[in-house]
């Protein structure tokens, strides 16, 4: 064959075949190959911001120091222990706050601000640590740690009258390293004491140290095991409860519950404050007869001017680059599971940015332009979707709506409307209607955890109304007036307690007037139960109470030859859309 006819053949074949091959390429390419370069900025819209994501708040009377209250705020959820090489730290750009309303007007009267600062000792390496991390000395802590984070705690006092007072309680406070694993952090617990700080307070709350340990504040900030426990996978799967027979459980029959947060770490702020600092004659806001404190956590980031007005470039003149914009609250948490299970999806951004003092105005549609949001929020509380679901799925009898009991438990604090039996010490005792559990006097409704700090609500001492063996499974519903929803202890099984509350367990005591004939069936106790009733690690008897974080190797060992645990997303069917 001479070259010319061959070339001609090839040419005519090419004319036919090229489109065919290209077409085939399109099909082959169809799956993972993008041939279209994007000539505009496809900046992400979904911002996963774990450092500014607050997940849980706890407020309890310190079991080993009952004249103090311990407040815990958790951030950076669902940390896998094997997080390297970019291990989790608090955000240096984030303003973290534990807020306390100690007068009941839904305003942060005493806040504790945490600001972090990270130093990389050797910026040339990406390594978190260069050798086994040891405690080191005060002057040179954790010598092998490359990424060191310290923080400042500032107490912000906003009395009901008079100017705001800001007081730095401590600066340059050390955080512990994360629990990397068996070689880097073999004796993790030995690294923690250096990160527990005791801050002495002078006479009359002034700076200094009066030498009286009762006035000390304790603080810790760092990685811990996530103290929350819940069967995420089943509860958010159309409220299935594994330990039950179908239809409440799964068709294949009852099993044990599965803690969706086992082996997961968080970053915790733990603060222990003398109660006298918040309540009573000598509180930091002056004489304060109120004994109930409301507690919530927030995280904020700074906004910024889009155009700074750099000389010669932008209108508006000159000036240096400035990011001194206001801090904008991007995350907020009070009562457990409210942000996740009660706040409608459409209101998430709004709710996370909202100050609790505006909750009730929003709720009652008193904020112009936000009436729709208010109605949505109110219907979410007064006609909870969970209740509908319980009725529809499992024929759990429904108390009549509107559920003012839910409103009281979550937004106001509880003052009983009928006689109620609590266990004082070990003795069942009936308390009359009108007993105040944790409702502030003349309080403004808002979403936060409320804890009564008065002496009868402290465990142990004389006159205590607490159950001597705490009822962590049922809390207040089980007659333990010192348990959730009066505050939240680390051990309280809040998922079950909230399920039972929504099913009307407190209905007869809290606002029963809507439907006096409703009676809650005690048979539901143990049935409305996700089967996860305790944390995956033992809590500590002393500060900071939360268990040490899971280590990378420890969890790695557990997962060898096992599938990675399933982080479960909330399925939307749990709520009406």
């Amino acid at each position, binding site marked *: 064959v001479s070259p010319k006819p061959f070339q001609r053949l090839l040419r005519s074949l090419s004319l036919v075949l090229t*489109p065919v*091959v290209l077409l085939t390429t399109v099909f082959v390419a169809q799956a993972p190959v993008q041939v*279209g370069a994007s000539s505009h900025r496809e900046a992400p819209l979904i911002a996963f911001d*774990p450092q500014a994501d607050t997940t849980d708040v706890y407020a309890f009377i310190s079991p080993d120091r009952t004249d103090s209250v311990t407040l815990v705020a958790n951030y950076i959820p*669902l940390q896998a222990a094997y997080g390297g090489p970019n291990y989790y730290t608090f955000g240096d750009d984030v303003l973290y706050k534990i807020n306390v309303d100690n007068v009941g007007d839904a305003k942060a009267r005493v806040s504790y601000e945490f600001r972090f600062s990270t130093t990389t000792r050797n910026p040339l390496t990406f390594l978190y640590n260069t050798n086994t991390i040891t405690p080191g000395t005060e002057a040179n802590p954790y010598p092998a740690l490359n990424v060191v984070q310290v923080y400042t705690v500032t107490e912000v006092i906003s009395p009901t009258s008079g100017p705001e007072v800001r007081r730095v309680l401590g600066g340059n406070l050390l955080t512990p390293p994360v629990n990397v694993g068996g070689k880097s952090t073999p004796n993790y617990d030995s690294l923690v004491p250096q990160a527990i700080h005791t801050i002495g307070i002078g006479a009359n709350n002034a700076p200094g140290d009066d030498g009286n340990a009762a006035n000390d504040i304790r603080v810790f900030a760092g990685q811990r095991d996530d103290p929350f426990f819940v069967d995420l996978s089943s509860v958010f799967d159309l409220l299935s409860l594994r330990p039950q027979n179908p239809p409440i459980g799964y068709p294949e029959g009852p099993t044990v519950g599965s803690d969706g947060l086992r082996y997961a770490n968080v970053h915790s702020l733990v603060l222990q404050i003398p109660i006298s600092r918040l309540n009573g004659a000598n509180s930091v806001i002056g004489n304060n007869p109120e004994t109930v404190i409301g507690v919530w956590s927030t995280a904020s980031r700074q906004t910024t001017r889009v155009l700074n007005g750099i000389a010669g470039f932008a209108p508006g003149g000159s000036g240096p680059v400035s990011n001194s914009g206001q801090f904008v609250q991007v995350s907020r948490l009070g009562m457990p599971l409210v942000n996740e299970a009660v706040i409608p999806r459409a209101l998430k951004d709004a709710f996370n940015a909202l100050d609790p003092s505006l909750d009730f105005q929003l709720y009652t549609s008193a904020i112009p332009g936000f009436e729709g949001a208010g109605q949505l929020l109110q219907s979410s509380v007064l006609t909870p979707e969970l209740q509908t679901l319980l009725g529809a799925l499992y024929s759990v009898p429904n108390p009549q709506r509107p559920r003012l009991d839910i409103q009281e438990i979550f937004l106001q604090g509880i003052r009983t409307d009928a006689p109620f039996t609590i266990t004082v010490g070990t003795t069942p005792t009936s308390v009359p209607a009108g007993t105040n559990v944790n409702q502030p006097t003349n309080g403004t409704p808002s979403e936060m955890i409320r804890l009564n700090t008065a002496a009868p609500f402290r465990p142990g001492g004389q006159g205590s109304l607490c159950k001597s063996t705490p009822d962590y499974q049922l809390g207040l519903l089980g007659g333990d007036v010192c348990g959730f929803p009066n505050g939240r202890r680390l051990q309280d099984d809040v998922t079950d307690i909230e399920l039972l509350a929504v099913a009307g367990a407190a209905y007869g005591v809290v606002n029963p007037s809507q439907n006096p004939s409703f009676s809650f069936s005690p048979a539901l106790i143990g049935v409305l139960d996700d089967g996860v009733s305790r944390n995956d690690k033992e809590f500590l008897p002393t500060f900071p109470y939360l268990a040490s974080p899971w280590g990378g190797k420890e969890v790695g060992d557990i997962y060898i030859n096992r599938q990675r645990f399933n982080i479960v*997303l909330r399925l*939307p069917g749990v709520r009406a859309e």
Partner: protein
Amino acid sequence: VSLVEHTSRKKTLFAGKRPELFFLLSLALLASVAMVRWTQQPASTTAPAPAVSINGLGGRVGGRDAQAAAAQLQAFLKDNPGSSGAYAQLGTVYLQLARESGDPSFYSKADEVFQQALKHDEQSVDAMVGLGTLALARHQFAQALEWGERAHTANPYLAQALGVKGDALIELGRYDEAVAVVQQMVDTRPDLASYSRVSYLRELHGDLPGAIDAMRRAVAAGGPATENTAWVAVQLGNLHFNSGDLAGAAQAYQQAMALLPNYAYGRAGLARIAAAEGRYDAAIAEYRAAIDVVPLPEFVIGLGEVYERAGQAQAASDQWALVGAMQQLNQASGVDVDLELALFEADRDQNLTEALTTLRAAYERRPGIHAADALAWALFKNGQLPEARRYSDEALRLGTRDALMHYHAGRIAEAQGEAARARQLYQQALTINPHFSLRYAPDAKERLQALQ
């Protein structure tokens, strides 16, 4: 329209002088695409988990988790076919998967489920935001703006709706409105999404230090090991690169690679730095590695330019041919022609008339400064100087510190006989970033000297 119909109209490609070359090239392309598909399989299963935040308990889904989430939502929808929320969440997962894999087939899947979500709930804000994002990805900016506005009306406190609006306004060249909307967005919710948009607007307005500062904040506000964080880290690198700071750029690209090993955009950034520093072998290796992961034309163009610069003419022209074939594929699969590709043709004096027509149409749809610059360059290449000057002035109107735009403007001024202006523009281009282009930075230097 089928590819065959389409290509039969494109006589220039196949009835050119050497159709057999195109046949062989198309075979090569098929082979390379098939190769990439094949090699991607293991890569995609080992990729660390990037994240999309799904509502609820800080639930985090990404990578394998995103695929699992998609499967879970699909199963859920089988039993609950009326759940608007599940459709919208599934669409959002598809969009993130499209981002991560570069696989455009996720776009049509997302489109379908977002429509379903709206069918079951016409007020579904997630669906509106999703459809807006989708329209942006498809370069349908007017529609994107409409979706953004609808979503914002339906939920005025949702920052994402403002993001869609802001992106669309930027592409439509309505910068003042975009500034106002993004200001509202960052005031509503300062986070990675809003900071990165603040950064882009500052960059467009010529404030590079401010842009770098905002992008740093975006990186700091991102989750660990997520595609979104790696993406903003690369943008931070680009900002440093575009201001001539190669060391700063390298650090940011390295950071992106530390977040997501083998992140193609990070690799391409490192390739650009290597090329700018004259380390051509390293640049070639990095570009090849990036193309192995995601074969984007911009990477192939970059690789071709390195070959060209390194004196490997044949290897360079292989890349040009590949880009040409990619462009054919693009058109065949209905993707809006990109400005980069049209600029590529204009740069190489190919199909100048067509490139001009394409860019005029593109400018009509998105009259922003980048479209104006591309159009100006095509007009210049077509010898239409007064009009080129008009669009070039428009491209520079915000004071953007973009070296290539200044170079383009310089060439136009020089052609118009304005030596002083041309000199000033070349000088500005080189001051902004002496490494702005392998192809044009040396040319700018020569022209500047010749004009002194």
